[in-house]
């Protein structure tokens, strides 16, 4: 039988999954940790390539230490394993190993720590080659020490843009500017540095100083409204966030990185049947969780950014908190006492407040989306996989789908391509809501702003399915 059974099954080896694994394994529970990447660490502790390590060293050594601790505690680490589905019992997870072999994974408790997706907004020209997301650029820079282009503009919103620009500089790129949709960096940043949790803001100030030294202009209140170019991007047009329809200046580039932060990756939680709701501030679909990360499904926890975007420190605490609750449930001698519980809870609350505070420095995602969508040309491609235009989504939503996101999807094909809506989903959901706003109580019908989760979460080789079926046959 190829079902792996354990006490706790954790999907996602980023900060949240790792911190949960360490706490649980230290208490003696049998833990299996699955991650589709070849190395543990997730987004934040992603390990650089050996060449980059030799040259620049590890910029986040605490990540390597956490991974080493998890391994030394005997956690069954399954890297290169993609979890793509849920079995008919609604509980056993289905995965594919690095060689394509199928696995069934079962834990008495399950922690979903699948992290976040980058948030993109469509704009004319975003389908051109060399237009990427900041995360992709950061990945190139951190893992391989390269940049997506020579002259690069970094744009969008959120604290993440600054370290990306710094990484690109370090990789030898000419960063022609950073365009931030809000006005977070003056003078409020200095004021906010005095807050109770200054480390992260001080870190940001450090990045800003670094960019200033390299004479990289930091434009605030600006968004990319268009990318132009023949066979790849050659220029980017900037506009005021408040008036994205009116171009202000054009910048020559050969790569453009645009992203508006992150949104939770909830596919697996939703496949497991966890209840989700729309977050009023971000407009995102988030699993409904309590302070411990418990979901509506007994024994299923969501931790880290999969439960709501909040940065690495919050992800670490959320992972540890879910682990603490599992130890309580297990009646483990290593279960946290009331003092530790109170401490974790207080830390969680403080980080939540801090997230809210630092989020407040940046424009509200829901408002930003609405502003950007309002000026989107009808002929802008919204779903790149299927080449669906804004007009097609708008007319499907307003005329026939009556604000129903799934109907808009089937009437327009937006979100039906290879990425299954991972890139366009947020924008399509927003366009549908805007278009339906005009139809009577249409907006109410949009429900949760996300396409339904479907198996497989990512495309799975038919060979894997055949092998899984043969196993079942063999088991009688």
């Amino acid at each position, binding site marked *: 039988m190829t079902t792996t059974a354990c006490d706790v099954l954790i999907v996602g080896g980023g900060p949240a999954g790792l911190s949960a694994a360490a706490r649980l394994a230290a208490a003696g529970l049998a833990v299996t940790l699955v991650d589709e990447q070849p190395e543990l660490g997730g987004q934040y502790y992603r390990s650089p390539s050996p060449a980059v390590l030799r040259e620049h060293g590890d910029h986040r050594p605490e990540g390597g230490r956490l991974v080493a601790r998890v391994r030394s505690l005997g956690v069954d680490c399954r890297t290169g394993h993609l979890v793509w*589905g*849920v*079995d*008919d019992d609604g509980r056993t997870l*289905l995965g594919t190993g690095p060689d394509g072999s199928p696995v069934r994974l079962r834990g008495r408790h399950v922690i979903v720590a699948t992290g976040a997706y980058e948030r993109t907004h469509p704009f004319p020209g975003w389908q051109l080659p060399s237009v990427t997301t900041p995360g992709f650029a950061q990945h190139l820079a951190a893992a391989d020490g390269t940049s997506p282009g020579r002259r690069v503009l970094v744009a969008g919103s959120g604290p993440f843009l600054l370290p990306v620009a710094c990484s690109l500089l370090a990789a030898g790129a000419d960063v022609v500017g950073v365009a931030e949709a809000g006005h977070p960096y003056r003078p409020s940043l200095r004021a906010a540095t005095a807050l109770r949790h200054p480390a992260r803001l001080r870190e940001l100030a450090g990045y800003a100083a670094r960019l200033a030294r390299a004479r990289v202009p930091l434009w605030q209140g600006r968004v990319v409204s268009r990318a132009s170019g023949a066979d790849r991007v050659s220029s980017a047009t900037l506009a005021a966030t408040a008036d994205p329809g009116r171009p202000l200046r054009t910048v020559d580039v050969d790569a453009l990185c645009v992203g508006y932060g992150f949104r939770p990756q909830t596919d697996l939680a939703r496949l497991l049947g966890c209840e989700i709701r729309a977050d009023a501030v971000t407009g995102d679909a988030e699993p409904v969780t309590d302070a411990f990360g418990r979901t509506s499904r007994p024994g299923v926890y969501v931790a880290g950014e999969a439960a709501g975007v909040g940065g690495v420190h919050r992800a670490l605490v959320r992972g540890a908190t879910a682990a603490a609750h599992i130890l309580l449930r297990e009646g483990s001698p290593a279960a946290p006492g009331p003092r530790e519980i109170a401490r974790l809870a207080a830390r969680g609350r403080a980080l939540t407040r801090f997230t809210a505070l630092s989020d407040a420095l940046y424009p509200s995602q829901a408002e930003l989306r609405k502003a950007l969508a309002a000026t989107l040309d009808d002929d802008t491609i919204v779903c790149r996989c*299927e080449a669906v235009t804004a007009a097609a989504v708008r007319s499907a939503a307003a005329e*026939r*789908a*009556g604000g*129903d996101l*799934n*109907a808009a999807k*089937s*009437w327009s*094909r937006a979100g039906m391509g*290879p990425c*299954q809506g991972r890139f366009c989903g947020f924008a399509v959901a927003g366009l549908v809501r805007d278009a339906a706003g005009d139809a009577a109580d249409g907006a109410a*019908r949009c429900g949760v702003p996300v396409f*339904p989760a*479907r*198996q*497989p979460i990512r*495309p*799975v*080789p*038919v*060979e894997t*399915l*055949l092998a*899984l*079926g043969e196993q*079942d046959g063999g088991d009688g």
Partner: protein
Amino acid sequence: MSALTADVVVIGAGVLGGAAAFHLARGGHRVIVLDRGAPGREGSGTTAGNLHVQAVHTRRPGQEVPLDSARFLPLQRAASDRWNSVEAELETSVELRRSGGFTIAETPEQRAELIAKHAWEDRAGIRTEVLDGDGARAALPLLGPTVTAATWCPLDGYANPLLTTPAYLAAAVRHGARLHPFCPVRAVERSGSGWRVTAGDLTVEAPHVVDVAGPWLGEIAALAGIGLRMTPVAIQMHVTVRLPETLRHLVQHIGEGLSVKQVTAGNLLIGGGWPALRLEPDGRSPVSLSSVLGNVAQAARVLPFVRDLRLLRTWAGPLAATPDEMPVIGEVPGAPGFLVAGGTYAFTFAPLWGETLRCLVEGKPTPVDIRDLGPDRLLEPAAPAAPYEEAR
């Protein structure tokens, strides 16, 4: 509360509702179409979209009785002919494609069944050709070694369901029909010699009601005090990533539920009626992994190139089945003006049933003989607690 009048109230905006509304509105009738949700999202938005012209596989997995192929085939023949004019009538492309299909056999019994089926097809005027295994592989080299025989039918085809229902509804609206999505029907009662239908905050009075609510056809009938034996189920579909044009034809299996074809966008669609985990009458039915594995394994056995593909997604859709697996269409005895249509292979039959429903409303002869397909065979005592009781 607004009260409307119409000639016909169509309940359900699936492909049958769309086709009925189109034919009726084009015929000059005042038509109101009601749907509880967004149009074309249920059976008609999840269907495989095959135009089945040669005999269909007689046993969907889990299906209790085989359908009566000898009786069914003349209907398929008529439905096939009717599709020829659909794109011209709707003034748009629905990606209609008649590139023919193979039905394959593996075992000796299936081979015998294939030959019997060929004889029925002959009688119904459907041209098919029987090939042995090597002949089949010569005609379609993609077929695998387990195939021992196949019938080829040049009329089998496909239309894109995500275009077809919208096109019918749009054409109906052009001809004056009024479409009310998100308008769930709550009551259906007699009013004088006609009917009063309450849906959302609308009330519509009309001499005719057309119940084409798919899997909920029985529920709507029950509102009108009519008990109909229906057996709704949910079945699933499996689709691979896109590939270059590889498979021009529809491939089906005579003994097991299997249908495979490549759609215009390039994806391979694998179906055949494998059951979903359960039917979720109020929402999305969840797929069953064992059906995924069974259906995909069959496809890879019959068409070995499938092994090298990747599965992109799966979904399940609801289906209105009758206990005898035959379509139901006609007026309910004792309920003048109350017409029903639905059941097996309603996508293939939509153009034919749309026109047939218009003829029924007009009291004219129908394009095919439907006397034995009426709802009388499904009648049973209505559930006593139906809301209509108090309304009377």
